[in-house]
């Protein structure tokens, strides 16, 4: 049973820009302490999170981020539109201030937490990850975020917690495809096994390219699971539930034969209608071969052990 998420957010008399500024100030202040010694240039202006962030443990040293303007205009955000370009424009009407996240289920400390309070507890780092869409295109994104495990640990999961369910915002007045009840069952739902959720590669991101997330890219808070197809990395999260049983996820429900619960990047398991053997990297020009897709999107060293003894063809 899904509770409409906007009920969780108390109506506020404070105007949105003010709260937004306040969130920025909190982040600035946090960053000032985390990167003290590196210099204050990053926190001098109010426009960006900063480029001097410490790097995450798995941040690819050798990865060159794709051009930011391409990524900001190429998002699958079906709540807004079924094509990638229109989502960018339409997403601007999403209301993201104030924002809070409800954490519930098999945890010792359930509750609804204001995003500012969540961020105050966490260390933001820059994580440069590959991102591979199930549609066979890919990009490299410098995310700004923190490990999901750090947040989960702070609410103390019970030993009965075996899965994590994530729910996106339900804002039909801002989201035309939600309003029309089109295609998927809204709000969007994704899920991970608890060990996947607790893996240090798994992030909650609040920014990219040293700035806050653009709305079309999942502001203000999204999941990043770099070894899985992009649709697992749910945007605009309002609810995180720890469960005993696997949640029903949106794409899996819509087309179970095409989109599995696991959705691990795997070049040798084709989508029923197209190959996953290669990918087109955004930013690569005409007459450049496609990149050969890697098992677990190149993160096998870190995550392959989660799936030993599992038939990846069966659990796609």
């Amino acid at each position: 049973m899904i509770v409409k998420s906007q009920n969780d957010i108390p109506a506020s008399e404070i105007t949105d820009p003010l709260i937004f500024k306040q969130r920025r100030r909190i982040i600035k202040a946090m960053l000032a302490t985390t990167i003290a010694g590196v210099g204050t240039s990053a926190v001098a202006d109010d426009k960006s999170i900063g480029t001097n962030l410490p790097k995450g443990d798995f941040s690819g040293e050798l990865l060159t981020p794709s051009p930011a303007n391409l990524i900001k205009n190429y998002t699958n955000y079906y709540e807004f539109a079924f094509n990638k370009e229109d989502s960018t424009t339409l997403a601007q009407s999403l209301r993201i201030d104030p924002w809070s996240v409800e954490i519930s289920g098999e945890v010792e400390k359930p509750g609804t937490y204001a995003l500012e309070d969540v961020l105050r507890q966490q260390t933001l780092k820059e994580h440069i990850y590959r991102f591979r869409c199930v549609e066979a295109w890919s990009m490299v994104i410098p995310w700004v975020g923190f490990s999901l495990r750090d947040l989960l640990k702070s609410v103390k999961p019970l030993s009965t917690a075996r899965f994590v369910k994530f729910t996106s915002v339900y804002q039909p007045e801002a989201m035309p495809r939600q309003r029309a009840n089109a295609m998927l069952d809204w709000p969007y739902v994704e899920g991970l096994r608890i060990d996947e959720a607790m893996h240090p590669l798994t992030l909650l991101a609040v920014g990219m390219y040293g700035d806050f997330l653009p709305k079309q890219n999942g502001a203000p808070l999204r999941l990043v699971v770099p070894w899985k197809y992009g649709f697992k990395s749910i945007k605009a999260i309002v609810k995180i539930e720890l469960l005993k049983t696997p949640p029903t996820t949106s794409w899996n429900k819509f087309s179970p034969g095409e989109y599995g619960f696991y959705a691990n990047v795997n070049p040798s398991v084709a989508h029923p209608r197209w190959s996953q053997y290669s990918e087109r990297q955004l930013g690569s020009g005409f007459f450049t071969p496609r990149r050969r897709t890697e098992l677990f999107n190149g993160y096998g060293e870190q995550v392959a052990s989660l799936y030993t003894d599992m038939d990846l063809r069966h659990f796609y």
Partner: protein
Amino acid sequence: MNFRFNWIWPFTIAGCLIPLLWLVFDIAYDNLGSNPIQALHIRLGDWALRFLCITLAVTPIQTFTKWRGMSDYRQLFGLYAFFYASLHVLGYLLADHYLEWQVIGIDIIESSYIWFGVLAYFIVFLLAMTTSKWAKKRLGKSWKKLHRFIYIAVCAAIIHYFWQLKGNLAEPLFYLLVIFFLLGFRALTWLKNRQPNENTG
């Protein structure tokens, strides 16, 4: 009315090249968005399909308007369908895969939507190769039979379109409707011709 020797003919030939010029312009000015290679496939694939539909529209239009001599236009549009389909395939092989045959081989084998594209292209290719007066003479009665395969080509093309779809149904549904009417016209004509008694009166 004879279309062959008036000003419409050269304008049509030139007009059919506008989509290509438009595409070249968009490539030159980097207007194809974040994934220009996919945009290229979409543009050229769409125009190949549109020209197939236009080709199939000639006969019904001729019937309804009683204009004569449009078969040259039918041939011209058919050749343009072949032209844009060929660019579509070249775009796939060269611009996208840069002739990496191993990756291309796996991609085609594993992508069922491409099988329908290949079937459509194979037919359109055969028809283009047998379009000349000379081939028409040589093939005699089988020429007409062979060129009816365009019906299969357009069906394969629309399946190819639907099969690669990720989201938006509206556009392919539009083409499906168009194709339904174009082929429906043939079906009706065929039925009519089977019952000459009822219709000649």
